[in-house]
């Protein structure tokens, strides 16, 4: 299958990329890994008139740890995240579960986040960690909290002339841990259910911060806020995690589909939340 015709432009700097996108407007798209965009273009679901290829911009392919956070550049592939010792917790846990090994060699984390597929895994992970998106436009850079970035399915809050240059994921100073649990029918399939959990423990051993988010069980990736509220201030325990699981299941809105019934998926949410929290706490305590 061939995509519809488009103008193709290779850019060598973020400034050049932003200028090209500004000129092309909402009919222009950035090309990074292309593992979601090109399939959509081949099926003619997407017919951009301009493709701005950012793959030759240098300096965007790094994962760097700064004070209190990890920055993942726009050209970091899923496989790079999986292989990196700079990431930990729920991000490291989710990386091997993105798509399949071949797609992971080309697809980028930033591209996946910007794509806002409601059944994508990364936005769930970022919601659980409270990450931010660094966007650059003609006026400079701004930070967008992931909650504000994910607007709706396949819709982010970027302006037409803005580009995602990096993700900023908080790296807790104290004890922390995280886990992503994903049920998929086969490698490369969307999650039937996915749950991301991130925990931080205070000096007293109690949970000082908690993030729980879900994939494929609501119209878009979403947080389980009731579960998070239950966790904070309490000591990790099997009972607490079971309660949080029940709260997450209650907050989920799964639908009957080819992957299973809504009732069953809700049970999976409860079990996965419990498991993800248990793993997160074990990591934080070790």
């Amino acid at each position, binding site marked *: 299958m061939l*995509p519809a*015709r*488009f103008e193709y432009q290779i850019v060598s700097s973020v400034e050049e990329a932003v200028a090209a996108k500004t000129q092309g407007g909402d009919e222009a798209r950035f090309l990074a890994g*292309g593992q979601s965009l*090109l399939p959509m273009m*081949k099926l003619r679901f997407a017919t951009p008139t301009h493709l701005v290829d950012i793959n030759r911009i240098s300096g965007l392919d790094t994962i760097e740890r700064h004070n209190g956070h990890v920055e993942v550049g726009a050209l970091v592939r899923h496989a790079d995240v999986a292989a990196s010792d700079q990431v930990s917790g729920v991000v490291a846990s989710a990386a091997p579960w993105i798509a399949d090994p*071949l*797609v992971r*060699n080309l697809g980028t984390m930033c591209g996946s986040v910007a794509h806002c597929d409601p059944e994508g895994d990364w936005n769930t992970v970022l919601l659980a960690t409270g990450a931010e998106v660094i966007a650059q436009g003609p006026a400079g850079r701004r930070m967008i909290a992931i909650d504000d970035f994910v607007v709706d399915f396949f819709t982010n809050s970027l302006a037409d002339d803005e580009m995602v240059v990096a993700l900023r994921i908080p790296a807790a100073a104290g004890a922390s841990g995280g886990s992503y649990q994903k049920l998929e029918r086969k490698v*490369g399939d969307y999650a039937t259910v996915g749950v991301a959990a991130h925990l931080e423990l205070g000096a007293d051993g109690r949970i000082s911060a908690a993030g729980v988010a879900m994939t494929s069980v609501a119209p878009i990736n979403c947080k389980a806020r009731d579960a998070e509220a239950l966790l904070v201030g309490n000591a990790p325990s099997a009972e607490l995690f079971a309660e949080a699981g029940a709260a997450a299941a209650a907050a989920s809105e799964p639908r009957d589909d080819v992957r299973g019934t809504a009732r069953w998926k809700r049970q999976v949410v409860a079990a996965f939340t419990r498991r993800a929290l248990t793993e997160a706490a074990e990591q934080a305590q070790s």
Partner: protein
Amino acid sequence: MEITVNINGTDHTADVEPRKLLVDHIRTDARLTGTHIGCDTTSCGVCTVLVDGKPVKSCTMLAVQADGRNVTTVEGLKSADGLHPIQQAFSDEHGLQCGFCTPAMMLVGAALIDENPNPSDDEIRWAISGNLCRCTGYMNIVKSIQAAAAVASNGAAGADA
């Protein structure tokens, strides 16, 4: 747009439309038809080639993106010394039936062994999890990659001695 892609050590220059897929450049411009087209929707992996040593789906990459890069297809596995160990292993261990997925499986196997000379059963299955085979049930594919890895690590040990 004029592009030059180094395929199996030879530069292939062609004037391509930006929307041309890498797999089509390989099959129609370079006339190397060992790289197959299966699902054409980024699912089956039979179009796998190595770009700068890494296995990717060539139906989901534009030819223009490969300009100036090194691509290895199944035709590039064989050397003057004969079959690549992964090819010999697929032959010895009956790692194929219809053969449609075989070029991709061998390239993924070769790339895995380059990176990890002693892969476990699980690591092999993980590495080929983006490649579908509808004949073999994968058993002999895994065995073939194991056999090739054993040859590669024996060879390396021999070279050290």
